[in-house]
Every structure is written in structure tokens, then in C-alpha cells.
């Protein structure tokens, strides 16, 4: 696990604390002792190759999945010891942006953003309208409020989902692969939005991604995950100078390195010969 520095600032403890997290899907371990600190007001990135369970980590933080060992606390509350009601109260203060946007397809953009307000508040319609238009303005889609969810491009859907995620003014937002499959322009828009919303609304953001450059550009702190463990962590600058081969390979996108180009196999020559002998 490496030397882990517990930066327990007494006056400002981390918003999210993950300790000794273990989680397995069937017999396949996904996390094997992960420790993380997400500091308040910062954009923290969690990065790693595909299939390292980054999305799973967000679902664990949100309490949708239950770890086999270890603990996750959000704002001082142990997520997996909360009752149903308390967990739902906590979730009202968390926003999550799913990769697909997860907009409700039978509602239009306006109603999607209004959805959490209607579900959780008894605000009068005029106030809901003001709030929805405010949030849509923040993501630049006030003009698209009459469109149905399935008429939106992927990038627009994510922005609408972002407006919905901030509708209840949460303390934190979790982004699940926000940049995947975006054209350069909408990617640029999202990168700018995540950072500016974080700073303007005083949020805490967690980004799960494998898009190194975009993510590194806006994050304050980065954790690199591989094989169920944290292999490196630090500010983007620190990781760029990191002596870890693995971190270098990942951050620079090298095809070969500690993560080999070839999947585990018998030596190439043996394989070719075996085929020739076997079939005669």
C-alpha cells in the first residue's frame, strides 16, 4: 500500500474517508484494501485502467453497494451503517453523474431537472421554475428545456444530468467517466463546467476517469488505482514527476511497461510450433 500520509487536519477533516476497503464480485476481488481521502472543496480524480472498478467505487460511496470489509464515511457518517432513511437523507446531499446521464426518458429536459425538486420539496411551481432555469442556465442549456431526453446528444445529456445533480445544492458530486465518448468541443465544455461549478458552488467533486489529460487538467489531487489497490497518489504535478514506472506508463499512455502489451501467454515460438506439431 505504500506509505500513506494521513493528513488529518483537525479543523477540516476530509469529506469522504475510505479505509481498508475490500469488495469482490463473485470470487473476483475488485478492491483489496483501498484507502482514500477526498478533501473538501477540491476536485479529486480517481484514475486507473478500464475494469479496475472505478464505477464500483462510486456506487460504494453512494451506498448502492456494500463492501465486504472496510469502511466509507461521508461527512462523518459511516455510509454502510446508516439506516434506509438516513442513507436517503445523505444521498440528497450527494449528486452523481452517470456515464449515460441516466435521464428519465419519459420526461423532457425541464422536468428532468425539476424531478429531484418535486420529489423532495414542496416548493411552489413558480419557485421550481426559477430554480430549474437557474440550473439549466449554469450548464448553458436553458434554451433546450422543451427537448425530450432522447433528443439530446451525449454531451448535452450529461450537462442536463449535471444540472439535475446540482438541483438540490449538494455538498459533493461524483462524476462517472464524464469525458468518455465526447467530441472535443463537448469535452472542453464539460471540463470547464466541472471545474467552474466546483469552485462557484463550493462543491467537492470526485471524478472517475481514464482520460488522463482532461482529468489531470482540472483536478487538485489524483489517486491511481490498479489491481484493487492505490498504486500512486498526489497532485497532478507530483504524479508527473513520479518515479513509479506504473504511474509514468499510465500518465503518458505508453503501450508497454509494467502493464504489458501482451496478455499472459506461453512464449510465442512455442505456441506456433505447438500448433504445427499438433495438427501435423
Amino acid at each position, binding site marked *: 500500500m505504500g506509505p500513506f500520509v494521513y493528513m488529518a487536519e483537525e479543523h477540516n477533516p476530509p469529506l469522504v474517508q475510505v479505509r481498508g476497503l475490500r469488495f469482490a464480485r463473485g470470487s473476483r476481488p475488485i478492491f483489496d484494501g483501498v484507502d482514500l481521502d477526498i478533501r473538501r472543496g477540491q476536485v479529486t480524480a480517481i484514475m486507473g485502467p478500464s475494469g479496475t472498478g472505478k464505477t464500483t467505487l462510486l456506487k460504494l460511496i453512494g451506498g448502492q453497494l456494500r463492501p465486504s470489509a472496510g469502511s466509507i464515511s461521508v461527512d462523518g457518517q459511516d455510509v454502510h451503517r446508516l439506516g434506509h432513511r438516513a442513507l436517503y437523507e445523505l444521498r440528497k446531499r450527494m449528486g452523481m453523474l452517470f456515464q449515460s446521464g441516466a435521464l428519465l426518458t*419519459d*420526461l*423532457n429536459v425541464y*422536468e428532468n431537472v425539476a424531478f429531484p425538486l418535486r420529489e423532495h420539496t414542496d416548493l411552489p411551481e413558480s419557485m421550481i421554475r426559477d430554480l430549474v432555469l437557474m440550473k439549466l442556465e449554469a450548464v448553458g442549456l436553458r434554451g433546450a428545456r422543451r427537448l*425530450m431526453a432522447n433528443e439530446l446528444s451525449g454531451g448535452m445529456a450529461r450537462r442536463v444530468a449535471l444540472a439535475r445533480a446540482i438541483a438540490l445544492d449538494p455538498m459533493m458530486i461524483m462524476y462517472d467517466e464524464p469525458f468518455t465518448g465526447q467530441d472535443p468541443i463537448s469535452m472542453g465544455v464539460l471540463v470547464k463546467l466541472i471545474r467552474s461549478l466546483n469552485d462557484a458552488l463550493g462543491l467537492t467533486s470526485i471524478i472517475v476517469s481514464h482520460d488522463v489529460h482532461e482529468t489531470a487538467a482540472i483536478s487538485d489531487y489524483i489517486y491511481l488505482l490498479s489491481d484493487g489497490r492505490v498504486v500512486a497518489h498526489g497532485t497532478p504535478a507530483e504524479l508527473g514527476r513520479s518515479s513509479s514506472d506504473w504511474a509514468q506508463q499510465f500518465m503518458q499512455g505508453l503501450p508497454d511497461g509494467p502493464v504489458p502489451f501482451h496478455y499472459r501467454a506461453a512464449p510465442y515460438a512455442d505456441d506456433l510450433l505447438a500448433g504445427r506439431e499438433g495438427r501435423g
Partner: protein
Amino acid sequence: MMQVRTVEIWVGVFVAAGLAALFMLAMQVSNLTVVGDDQGYTIKARFENISGLKVRSPVTVAGVRVGRVTAIDFDPQTFQAVVSMRIGAAYNQLPLDTSAAVLTSGLVGEKYVGLEPGGDMDVLQDGGEITLTQSTLVLEQMIGKFLFDKAESGKE
């Protein structure tokens, strides 16, 4: 997305149609119209033979259904069947000397009790008993009797 109001109206129409269908099934198709058990009065009649008659079989006057059979008992003293009938409150003008018969609707139809009003000025009260009864016609007995008569007349 459809207007909320349109949806509400359609659902209203649908629920109303469904309830109306249930109501029609009750009134038009089934026998709910004839008699409510709580209103009406009970009379009894004794028969030698009621084979085929059941609880809930209809009771009619001149072909009009006025009530139904509520109980069938056996009197061990007289070896007769005692049939209790619930008659609708609207039909409380049945004379005291009304006669009852167990009849069949059609050749293979169900059995029912047919009442034939007499000429008495007094009417049947709750718990009253019909004394003039005619038992069901048992087909086997009739055929047997018919064949027997034929044979008798053939001999002469």
C-alpha cells in the same frame, strides 16, 4: 408527453366504463335484480320428491322469478323434503292456497319451483307453509309407467 389532463380524462372514462360493465354484469346478466336476501320473506313447502332441485334454484310465479330456494331439509317423520324459499318483498300478495310444483325448464333444463296462486283472500306470511304441492316428475318413473300401461293394454 401527453397532457396530464387528457390522461386523467381517459383514466376517468376507463374506470367509469369498467365499473359500468360490472354494474351491467350484475343487473343485466346475473340475478342480482330479483331478490336481496335481507328484504323479503321465507315460506316453506313440503314435497314427496324434489330430485334435481338445489339451493339457489329459482322460484317463479307465472314464469317470473320472484325468489329462490334458500334451504332444503329432510323431515324424518314424514319422509318428505322441506324446501325453504326466500320470496322478494315486492311479491307479498301470494294467496294462502297457492300451490307449488317442482318443474323443469325445457326437457333438460334446470329444476325450479313454480308457484300457482289460488283464490284465497288471505296472503302467505313470513314462515308460512304451502300445503298444496306437486312433486317433480321423474323421467324414469314416467317411462316405466308408460311402458307398463302399454303392456297392460296390449294384453287385453
